[in-house]
């Protein structure tokens, strides 16, 4: 500026050039800040994804030990009745242990034997029972079965336990390593896709723990949430936006809806505990109550998103419809709501995605319990994906670390799926005017 004041005539041009340069520099700087901000955010995201995938991917495979198991009739079904309930309760562990002893006949001491049996997962009972249940003709035969390795063995085989560490610091001792080496040399140790993770419920044993129970729980919970919050939210938004008079009362309601959207989610959990569980006596740990609590939490989001979508419908469309004699309800249901639908759906799905990742309010209503069974309805005890992740993250076993990350990956996968759905729906229903 001083240049400009001192110089007149032709010198003003030089000052203007300088000024213009300054503006260009400012613009370049501004763009750089933007790029830097995006790069920082993308970097953080990449770091998160990489760290989770790096810890979690091993949970998707599982080591097994192949044993020649003889399905002895006198152990499984001494009476020979082939009664399914007898078959299910037989001592299959004994069979697996017998075949292990055959492989390592020189293991004699009691303590050593226990260690040897410890190579196998406690799930061997269930695994063999399922085999026999699906094919009772196995009884009396010898069959090579891949039995799940215990979580420590699995961790060792995946390289999480260092065999050069002092024995006292190791969960897997020298003797066990020797046995495993022998098994590995004979080709008995196999690694395969961990199907249990996608098909079973939770377990205290990491190698048996699955995510499916939590996924079903999340599904039921979100179903309840959607069924409650979508119609109520859209109706509330439509009424407030299209029919309600603009007065002090509607202003108060609007302010309070905005306030509700900002209430910490755990408060809704407390509300659910006090009202739904203690007052109405609804079942604890049930997706029904979880869904109701999450619906309360999601409602303000859906109402706000729907209202702004309705607001964005151009008034010319309303006028056109009124102009040919449509009633207020016809204007809204035939024209305004269909045009606002992409925005409403996007808002609803974003609200749902938030509900899917919500943990705190569900802790309050008991969905944090250890539940093995897959829920079959909205009133069965269940847990949800984020709570399952929280539970596993809290467990001391080494193998749960990978499972926690695997759970996070599954959860993120579902979130991405839902967001993709939002984009697709938006594109599909979008109409130009």
């Amino acid at each position: 500026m001083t240049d400009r004041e001192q110089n007149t005539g032709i010198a003003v041009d030089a000052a203007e050039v300088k000024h213009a340069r300054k503006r260009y520099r400012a613009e370049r700087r501004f763009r750089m800040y933007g790029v830097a901000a995006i790069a920082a955010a993308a970097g953080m995201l990449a770091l998160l994804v990489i760290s989770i995938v790096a810890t979690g991917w091993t949970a998707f495979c599982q080591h097994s030990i192949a044993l020649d198991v003889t399905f002895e009739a006198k152990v499984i079904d001494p009476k020979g009745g082939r009664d399914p309930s007898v078959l299910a309760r037989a001592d299959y562990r004994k069979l697996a242990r017998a075949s292990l002893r055959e492989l390592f006949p020189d293991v004699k001491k009691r303590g050593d034997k226990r260690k040897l049996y410890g190579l196998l997962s406690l799930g061997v009972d269930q695994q063999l029972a399922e085999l026999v249940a699906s094919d009772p003709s196995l009884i009396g035969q010898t069959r090579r079965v891949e039995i799940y390795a215990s979580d420590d063995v699995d961790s060792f085989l995946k390289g999480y336990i260092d065999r050069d560490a002092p024995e006292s610091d190791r969960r897997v001792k020298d003797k066990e390593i020797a046995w495993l080496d022998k098994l590995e040399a004979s080709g008995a140790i196999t690694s395969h896709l961990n199907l249990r993770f996608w098909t079973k419920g939770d377990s205290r044993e990491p190698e048996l723990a699955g995510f499916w129970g939590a996924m079903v729980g999340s599904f039921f919970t979100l179903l309840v949430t959607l069924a409650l919050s979508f119609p109520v939210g859209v109706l509330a938004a439509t009424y407030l936006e299209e029919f309600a008079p603009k007065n002090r009362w509607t202003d108060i309601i609007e302010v309070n809806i905005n306030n509700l959207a900002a209430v910490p989610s755990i408060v809704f959990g407390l509300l659910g505990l006090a009202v739904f569980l203690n007052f109405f006596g609804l079942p604890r740990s049930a997706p029904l109550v979880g869904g109701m609590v999450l619906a309360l939490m999601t409602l303000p989001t859906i109402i706000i998103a729907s209202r702004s979508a309705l607001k964005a419908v151009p008034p010319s469309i309303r006028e056109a419809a009124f102009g040919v004699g449509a009633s207020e309800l016809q204007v809204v249901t035939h024209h305004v709501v269909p045009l606002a639908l992409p925005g409403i759906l996007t808002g609803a799905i974003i609200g749902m995605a938030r509900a899917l990742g919500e943990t705190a309010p569900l802790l309050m209503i008991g969905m944090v319990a250890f539940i093995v069974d897959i829920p079959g309805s909205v009133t069965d005890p269940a847990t949800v994906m984020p709570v399952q992740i929280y539970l596993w993250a809290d467990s001391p076993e080494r193998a749960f670390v990978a499972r926690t990350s695997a759970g996070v990956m599954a959860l993120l996968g579902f979130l991405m799926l839902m967001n993709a759905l939002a984009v697709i729906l938006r594109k599909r229903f979008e109409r130009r005017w």
Partner: protein
Amino acid sequence: MLDSEMNSATIADPKVVCRDVSVSYSGKQALFDIDLDIGSHQVTSLIGPSGCGKSTFLRCMNRMNDVIDGCVVTGSISVDGVEILDDEIDAVQLRRRVGMVFQKPNPFPKSIYDNIAYGPRIHGLVRGKDELDEVVQTSLERAGLWEEVKDRLLQPGTGLSGGQQQRLCIARAIAVRPDVILMDEPCSALDPIATARVEELIDELKRSYSIVIVTHSMQQAARVSQRTAFFHLGIVVEVGETEQIFTNPRDERTQGYITGRYG
């Protein structure tokens, strides 16, 4: 204010009779005691500078102001002798009889066919698909659009050109068989060629309908209308035969406006 005798506000065979019509938006008065008759089967144009209340007046005649919060209309408007400002009168039924075409072409984001069919459908004017097809075809024919769109009736109406869209909106308005058509600057968003086509159409339509048109174009008012009312600051300054208004205005404000001195 001139004597009312000088304004030929009343005519022999009126379709719409407006008396003492005043409108205020949230307490702010926009129209003051308007007296105006709309003739049958002729075009009445409302001219005047922006903000003079001519659109507001137009929207009184099919009660489109009802949907605006805080808008109060007083006075009396009767269509074929029926008082329409009466609360007893269903605005929805009224708007079927008094159709409207807006400034900006605003077809529904639906197919051309559905744009026309929407009105007859919601009013239950037709029975069966054949009858509806016929209504769609006649409406498009009368709007001079049939030949251009008959092969693409199922394509979106928003895909037409601006002029075609406006004619589609006119076709949509006549599909419900109204008596009166209100047009709020129907050509302001159109190019001269499209404007000429819409003006031709208006000239045709006046045989079957009573038309009221708000326009900012003096030439357009002179070309299409038989009667003209000049609005200024919420009152009707002068109303009369279009020819008289444009060749021999009685009020100097009218004179000033049509010669382009203000407005």
